[in-house]
């Protein structure tokens, strides 16, 4: 298992993770927690100033991928598919996401991710992601 600091160094090399301004809060064997600040470049609706739904899916996927980041021997985990449910509009505030491995086999990992803003009990989105590890 890589440390939060080493993982942060790794992801800071990835252009899209820098675009999201992804910051690792915590990582353990099964779980990774990240935050993403609100920014003008990720606004979806210019009238309501909500964070773009597609970017929320990206943030969930990015965090989910970090739970298995060191699993493939070469490269990074390959996303296979995703399902995201949107539960509340995301306002111009930081988002936090916690991703947890549901099952990680030899070839496939299933990861759940949940994102919230002020209150973890009131998530803005939840998703399930599958990754190919070979």
């Amino acid at each position, binding site marked *: 298992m890589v440390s939060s600091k080493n993982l942060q160094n790794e992801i800071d*090399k*990835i*252009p*899209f*993770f*820098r*675009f999201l301004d992804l910051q690792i809060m915590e990582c353990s064997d099964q779980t990774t927690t990240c935050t993403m600040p609100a920014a*003008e*470049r*990720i*606004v*979806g*609706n*210019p*009238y*309501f100033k909500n964070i*773009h*739904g*597609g*970017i929320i*899916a*990206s*943030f969930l*996927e*990015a965090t989910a991928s970090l739970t298995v980041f060191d699993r493939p021997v070469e490269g*990074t985990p*390959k*996303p*296979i*598919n*995703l*399902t*995201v*449910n*949107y539960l509340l*509009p995301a306002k111009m505030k930081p988002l936090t996401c916690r991703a947890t491995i549901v099952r990680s086999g030899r070839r496939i990992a299933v990861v759940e991710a949940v994102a919230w803003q002020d209150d973890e009990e009131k998530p803005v989105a939840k998703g399930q992601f599958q990754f190919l590890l070979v």
Partner: protein
Amino acid sequence: MTDEPTYISMDQIKALWLIRSGFHGEMNAEIIEADGESVLLRMPFNSSFCVDTEKDLIHGGILTAFMDSAFGLATMLAMPGLRTIATLDLRIEYLRPAKSRADLIVFAECYRQTRHIAFNRGRVWFEGDDRNEVAMGFASFAVTRGENMLMFDREDKNGEQ
């Protein structure tokens, strides 16, 4: 005077979608075709959307975000008299690595509209390679009906200030 409601026009909806602010400014996508049932859009290559240091592999999340925006446009064009629209869910399949510096093309259609829900499906490929889709997706939106879009109320209000 007629009692016909004056819905926002297709051109107004397209102009709204083409506003270059927020993430839509970053995507910088253009409308190739939009006929009211389906849309065909192009997004130029952008190296800040990549996941590799060689900068030719697009992160899946960008394909998802591009499809989400395309579904939103398809729904707004397919449903005149929409008051509000909110994404309920997104389901995406990544069919192959998005490894290219070509522009991305998305085709999206709102294939069923009910009183409360709009159902969408779409696919993404690199320009010039439409036989090899990189992603397919579905999304449903919760919609409410009304004569005008809620966001235009806000615009009027802002205009008065």
